[in-house]
């Protein structure tokens, strides 16, 4: 039986070596700095992006892949092996039209599309990426579509995402602020503790005064979720190495981390979080 093929988009922030190792196909979103257009994770590395973000006066814009771009990828995979099912996993549909594009691409395949499964990760960045990598690993091991879909649903339900941003300005200007909007312009250096709701909407689950107290609160929240259970941790690197490192240290001091991975916040996600972001993604093993 043909192995399941896994497709995703660039917002999953999966490092290149992992994509290659598991044969994950990626469709890039685009990042636009003024007149210049870059393919996310192809033309623009995370480092290059944050440097440009600092230098550029105007905020970058992003655009989702067209259905045609997905169609090309699906079509090519089906030509390689018409029997191989495709699972295409995407950034939360409440955050981006990417899922919509992929869905249209599937319908363009007509009958062949029946073997293509478009999945809304209801998450973003490594919260989305961890599902893709899990699916790809299971696919490589020969798991069926049903087994994979079940496994990623379970992973989705026992994972946690927390992130801190330097300023809410980017989320607001990018129209992705969700329920954290209430905290704009607050005094006393209030840091919202950001997370994603079950459908992927950005939300503020709590707040704290200052970054350090916010990190302490994230650890508290994680402790409440996981206790002493064994978990996997993905630390998302950004331009703020010190903050990211401190958050990692605090989480590892209190939480029983058995698997540790690093990812990098890419250009599209970075456009919405802005500089000075730190994020952790956890899942129960």
């Amino acid at each position, binding site marked *: 039986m043909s192995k399941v093929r896994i497709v995703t988009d660039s917002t999953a922030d999966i490092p290149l070596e992992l994509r290659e190792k598991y044969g994950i196909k990626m469709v890039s979103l685009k990042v636009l700095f003024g007149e210049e257009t870059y393919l996310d994770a192809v033309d623009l590395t995370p480092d290059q992006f944050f440097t440009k973000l600092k230098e550029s006066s105007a905020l970058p814009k992003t655009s989702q892949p067209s259905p045609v771009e997905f169609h090309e990828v699906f079509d090519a995979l089906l030509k390689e092996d018409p029997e191989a099912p495709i699972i295409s996993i995407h950034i939360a549909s409440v955050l981006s039209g990417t899922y919509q594009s992929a869905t249209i691409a599937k319908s363009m395949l007509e009958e062949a599309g029946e073997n293509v499964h478009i999945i809304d990760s209801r998450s973003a960045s490594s919260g989305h990426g961890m599902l893709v990598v899990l699916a790809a690993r299971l696919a490589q091991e020969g798991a069926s579509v049903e087994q994979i879909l079940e496994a990623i649903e379970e992973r989705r339900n026992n994972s946690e995402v927390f992130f801190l941003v330097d300023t809410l300005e980017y989320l607001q200007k990018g129209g992705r602020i969700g329920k954290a909007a209430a905290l704009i312009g607050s005094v006393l250096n209030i840091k919202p503790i950001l997370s994603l709701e079950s459908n992927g909407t950005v939300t503020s689950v709590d707040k704290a005064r200052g970054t350090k*107290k916010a990190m302490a609160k994230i650890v508290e929240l994680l402790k409440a979720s996981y206790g002493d259970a064994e978990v996997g941790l993905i630390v998302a690197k950004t331009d703020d190495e010190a903050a990211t490192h401190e958050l990692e240290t605090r989480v590892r001091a209190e939480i029983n981390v058995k698997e540790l991975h690093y990812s990098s916040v890419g250009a599209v996600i970075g456009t919405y979080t802005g500089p000075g972001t730190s994020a952790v993604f956890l899942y129960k093993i």
Partner: protein
Amino acid sequence: MALLGASVLQSNAEKVNALNVFPVPDGDTGTNMNLTMASGVTELKKKPSNEVGKAAEALSKGLLMGARGNSGVILSQLFRGFAKSLAGNDQANAMEVAAAFQHGVDLAYKAVVKPVEGTILTVAKEAARHAVQYARRNTDVDDLMKEVHAKAQEALLRTPEQLPVLKQVGVVDSGGQGLVYIYEGFVQYLTGSTAEDTDAIISEAAPVEVYVPERTEPVSAQAKLETLDIEFFYDMEFFIKRNVSNAAVAAFDESAYKKALSKDGDSILVITDDDIIKVHVHSRKPGDVISLSVQYGELTDIHILNMREQHREILAEQGITEHSTSVNLSAAELLAGQAIDDRPTEHGFEVAPYGMIAVALGDGVAELFRASDVDIVLSGGQTMNPSTEDFVKAIESLSAEHIFIFPNNSNIILAAEQAIELTDRSVTVIPTKTIPQGIAAVLAFKEDETPERNKEWMVSAASMVISGQVTKAVRDTSIDGVNITEGHYIGLKEKAIVTSQPDLLAASKELLESMLEGDADLITILTGEGATEEITTALCEWLSENFSDQEIDLQYGGQPLYPYVFAVE
């Protein structure tokens, strides 16, 4: 009799103040008890009666409403029990008076969560116990009162034996002393001392009722008031004529109308007659007031005065110029006005699920609370704590289903809690003892959670903060092994004095060092009167050199008497 009691207390208020154990310049027991008593006397004068039961009831009601500070609240409870016991009596014999004293003590003990011996409570208790015993053998009320006074005096002298901190400082309990002065006044009355000049003294003592729902520095003198502090600055007066036009007019609901006015106004007075309503209000938005009022009928005799303009004229006459910060302030105020406009309103008000009332000292601190969603900030006043009545008024001016109160001072908690009993609104007092605790508690608030869970979080958040304050010692003393010199800067960690230094910077550093002994993530500095930019900068530099693991948040507090208030959390 009560008038003389109040009078003797009033003339000795400063002596009582001087007995305050802590050499910090606020929370004066004498002032608090005096203002509480004055409120009782005012009520008594409104309803003079020859019946002892009714007179005691009037006094008790006034005391209850005017209660300020812990000693004031206890005093009000003592007389509440006293009045309850005598209710319905025309006269009282010695036995009844003694029983009334005892009932007062019983109620006061119940009102205090953790009664401490060696305080006003003990003085009242021993005096009452003696009264009950004495009344079994003697029937003369005058003699009984003398005995009560003597026994109270005796009990007072023993308070240093009961409360170690009094002994350490070498004073008797200040609240107990206040009570003895009141009893002394009673005795003077009964033994025939004339009440001459009592009236003059009392009216002097009566507090100026300054109740401003939002901006609340007590108005003591025009010169102390910034023109822009007059928030509701259009003084409006007009009549609504109900039946002159044929057009249908809306039904008039006085309490809803007042609530609507209070949204952007204070000093509200509405007098409703059959076909005419007289309205007086200080409002920030005269247009809204007119639009609201015109629904109920035709408006006549409309007077609108700009009080800021009047105030500027007064200042000009006195040769005082306004502060240069006025431009910024007015910009901020414009924004604040806009934010209010953005809220969806029906007749200018709506019922919110939650309301918050905080007590604060200093314009900066008040602003921090307001920016953190606190609806009403009551002034903590350096020697005038808000009374139970102030809390009741604040509670009733809020249109919210559930109200949280943050007293932010250990001497204000009881007065706030007493307010709960005097209103039918749903109110929770979060017993915050310091401004830093209050800020932490307010920030723990979550709109979509129940009052019970919110209380839990707020109390827990407050307990995670270490509070510190720097102020000037008002007298020489020695507490907890720290020798304190008048005029030196003392550092208080929670309630304990940890340092006394001639130099503000040195005292601040030493205090912070003791506060930073454990783990901490954040140091907040609230600058008050007496803080200088130079010292603040030096302090911040010293902190970032020595405590680099902590974030520092520097905020303007504007609190009087305390150059610095610190929070470590």
